[in-house]
């Protein structure tokens, strides 16, 4: 057998394994429609097929013809061809994962939808292929914008540019895009030299440290920060704040090379490019993790992608799966890391300590109350709302948990011309919740949620929670 055919066979095996695993997951679907009741898109789009049909139903249908052929007949229960509009519907899914949370059987319809989309089997003819290619590589816009700023910042809001974006590129001309940063984060903080992979894996770090257990499994207090595209091209000051905060709390910090987490590529179904990006990220992060570093993200979506999607969407080649799992164990959202650090410090000192702001900073100094929006990806991670916990420690500031559901933007989704209206319709609940605040000041850790809230309520002041917390320290 030639090497080529071996390699092909291995790929086939891998795909079969994935199919089987996904089919088993799909078969757990009871068709109870709990996912449909939770889907924010179903309420605003008359023709949207919904998570049940696009996820488990579609997986079953793919397998049904083979079953029928093999059995010489079959019962035909799931063999009815799903109609053509479905591929377009696959593109409509927001990826908010509320269906995953609603499912009583643990099916994870959003994951099956993403797998269906990435498989390419149902891809409709892309009329906006260049736009989708470009948005899948959102860092290109950041690179171009920061290179051409301040001209880019002056030109971007102008009518001719918006017209061109809308009609030529397919990016909504109504969408308020964030201005590019004057300096890239990487020009302020050179990426730290990456450590070499140790010859033997560090067995002391065989898993994540256990929480709330004094005396064992404490954090290493060495953190490599993954800035992501947002901090690199739009909010370098947030990255600065992250590093300063961690340093103040006695954590050794390093900065990873700027790279995209791969989420835009996954969302826009550029499967091969996503696999390449994911593989590169895992190889890079593994070197840090194996040398005792934890990985911290300030973007909740990037963090969830690395921790969850790399493995669950089968984007990792088989030889790197273990590595990806190992990296995932040491990936933290910044808020989660801070709360974990607080527990560790309590254990270390033998008494209860808190990470608290010594005062409110920025606009919070002048406010009696602020709203907190929970991004869908934070809900999907099911790891609580660390930033809400921390914000509630602000002295004399009431923090309102908006609990208003999905904002609708879903990353690059809400930038697209044909989806801008959908994104706004989904975000109507959040819009009303923000407008109901005494003063529209909102904190949320997701960068695209912030973009959407600014779009929904132009007068709102929206920021990362860390930007409201001044001088976080152990108290």
């Amino acid at each position: 057998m030639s090497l080529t055919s071996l390699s092909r066979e291995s790929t086939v095996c891998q795909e079969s394994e994935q199919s089987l695993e996904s089919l088993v997951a799909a078969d757990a679907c009871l068709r109870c429609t709990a996912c449909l009741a939770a889907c924010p898109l179903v309420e605003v789009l008359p023709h949207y097929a919904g998570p049940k049909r696009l996820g488990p139903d579609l997986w079953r249908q793919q397998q049904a013809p083979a079953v029928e052929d093999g059995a010489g007949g079959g019962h035909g229960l799931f063999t009815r061809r799903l109609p053509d509009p479905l591929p377009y519907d696959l593109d409509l899914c927001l990826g908010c994962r509320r269906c995953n949370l609603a499912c009583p059987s643990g099916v994870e319809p959003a994951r099956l939808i993403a797998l269906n989309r990435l498989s390419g089997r149902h891809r409709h003819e892309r009329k906006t292929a260049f736009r989708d290619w470009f948005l899948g590589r959102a860092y290109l816009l950041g690179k171009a914008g920061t290179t051409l700023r301040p001209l880019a910042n002056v030109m971007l809001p102008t009518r001719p540019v918006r017209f061109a974006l809308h009609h030529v590129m397919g990016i909504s001309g109504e969408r308020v895009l964030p201005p590019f940063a004057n300096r890239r984060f990487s020009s302020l903080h050179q990426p730290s030299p990456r450590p070499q992979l140790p010859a033997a894996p560090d067995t002391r770090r065989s898993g994540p440290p256990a929480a709330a257990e004094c005396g064992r499994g404490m954090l290493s207090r060495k953190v490599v920060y993954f800035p992501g595209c947002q901090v690199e091209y739009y909010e370098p000051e947030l990255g600065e704040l992250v590093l300063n905060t961690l340093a103040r709390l006695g954590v050794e910090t390093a900065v990873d090379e700027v790279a995209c987490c791969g989420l835009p590529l996954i969302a826009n179904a550029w499967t091969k490019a996503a696999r390449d990006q994911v593989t590169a990220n895992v190889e890079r992060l593994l070197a840090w993790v194996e040398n005792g570093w934890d990985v911290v993200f300030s973007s909740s979506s990037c963090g969830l992608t690395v921790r969850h999607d790399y493995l669950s969407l089968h984007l990792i080649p088989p030889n790197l799966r273990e590595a990806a799992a190992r990296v995932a164990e040491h990936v933290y959202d910044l808020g989660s890391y801070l709360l974990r650090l607080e527990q560790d410090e309590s254990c270390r000192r033998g008494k209860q300590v808190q990470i608290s702001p010594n005062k409110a900073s920025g606009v919070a100094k002048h406010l009696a109350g602020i709203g907190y929006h929970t991004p869908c990806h934070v809900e999907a991670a099911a790891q609580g709302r660390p930033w809400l916990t921390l914000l509630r420690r602000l002295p004399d500031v009431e923090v309102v948990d908006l609990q208003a559901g999905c904002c609708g933007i879903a990353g690059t989704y809400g930038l697209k011309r044909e989806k801008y209206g959908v994104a706004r319709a989904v975000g109507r609940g959040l819009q009303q919740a923000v407008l109901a605040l005494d003063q529209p000041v909102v904190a949320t850790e997701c960068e695209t949620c912030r973009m959407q809230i600014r779009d929904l309520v132009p007068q709102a002041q929206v920021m990362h929670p860390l930007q409201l917390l001044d001088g976080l320290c152990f108290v």
Partner: protein
Amino acid sequence: MLDEKAQLVVVGGGLAAYAAALAAARQGIEVLLIPDGGKSWALFGGSFAARVQTQSEPFEALVELYASAAYPLVAAKPAEPFVLPTTMGTVRAADLTPEEFQAGDLRRPDPILLVGWRELPAFSPAWAAAAIRQRLVEWAGRSGDGSAAPTVLAGTLAISQVLPQLLSGHTPVDGDYPGFNWRALAREMEQPESRRRLASALNQALVKADLPRPVRQARDEGRLRVALPVVGLNLSQSVRREVYDLTGLVLCELIGLLPAPGGIRAKTILDKALVSAGVAVRPGWKVTRIVAGEKPTACGRVQGTEEGFAITGEYLVLAPDLATDPLSCLAARLPHDFRQAEGRLVRAGAALYLYTDDKGKMRPVSGGTHAFLWASGYQAGQEAAANLVGRIDTQAAGGSRVGECGR
């Protein structure tokens, strides 16, 4: 890392859990609600049966809650439940139900016209009407009184003609709109212009239809009922009122569409009430282990699957829902030591229908039905909260308790 604290942790995603959380929060208690173990709102028709109620005024709190959301419930006379038609052609008994369902009560003699939408294949009015007629005949045979049975008719409207904007830009597949979903239709029906178009379409269809004389008479007298699979989502009362004003037709809603409009409305009402009462809701947390009463001073503690996170509360209400997940529901996973919680742990709702078998395992009782569970859930939740409220120090709420709970 997950680490949140509250005075009362409520685990469960059904009516009992919501009721317990709401009742406690309204007493000034810090409440964390983990809606694990029940996602059955999509299956909840929206009506309540009272057969297992034990108190004299079982539904008072529910009626009050719905009324505060401007969505009134109607109660049947004791032991005379409403008989409501469903989209499947079956009937369902209910003692407390929203007005749009109650209007379709089959005990009333007024004729009822089941109307479907051609593009919404989930409901076939002709089939459902035939099945309901059959049931009414059987019913009359058993009771010996067929005089009061209403005439049941069927008809179909086309969205493409009545509300064409809903289908714009969408190409049918083999004449079908398979992706069409009722929630968007319901929202569209709430628009003033769409309500008028619906009223006009119904009027025209009835003018053209060859109706039997008693039905025509009922139509002229404003007694003819038109049952649709869904009548709006959050503004169903307004839709009904406007259509009646314009046409004299009494709009009613059939139970049975999935996900259930009644359940979605109920959840919306409860969600809003929870938010305004300040309850922290944490969807997606899977509770896998419960440790209670480890030592007398220890706090109740719920541990989850990811990274060993801990949810700490002084008191726990467990209100798992059996409706969607009877085999692996939380109650079945409860260890015996929950009994040692010294009054800090209270079960509610579906858990009331569990018994402990010879081997000490919790099992659901046989014969329980979905309606039973929903009927008692709200009250059970309230009772659970009432059991605990007196023991919780409401003055201690608000972050000052960090560190006191079992680290």
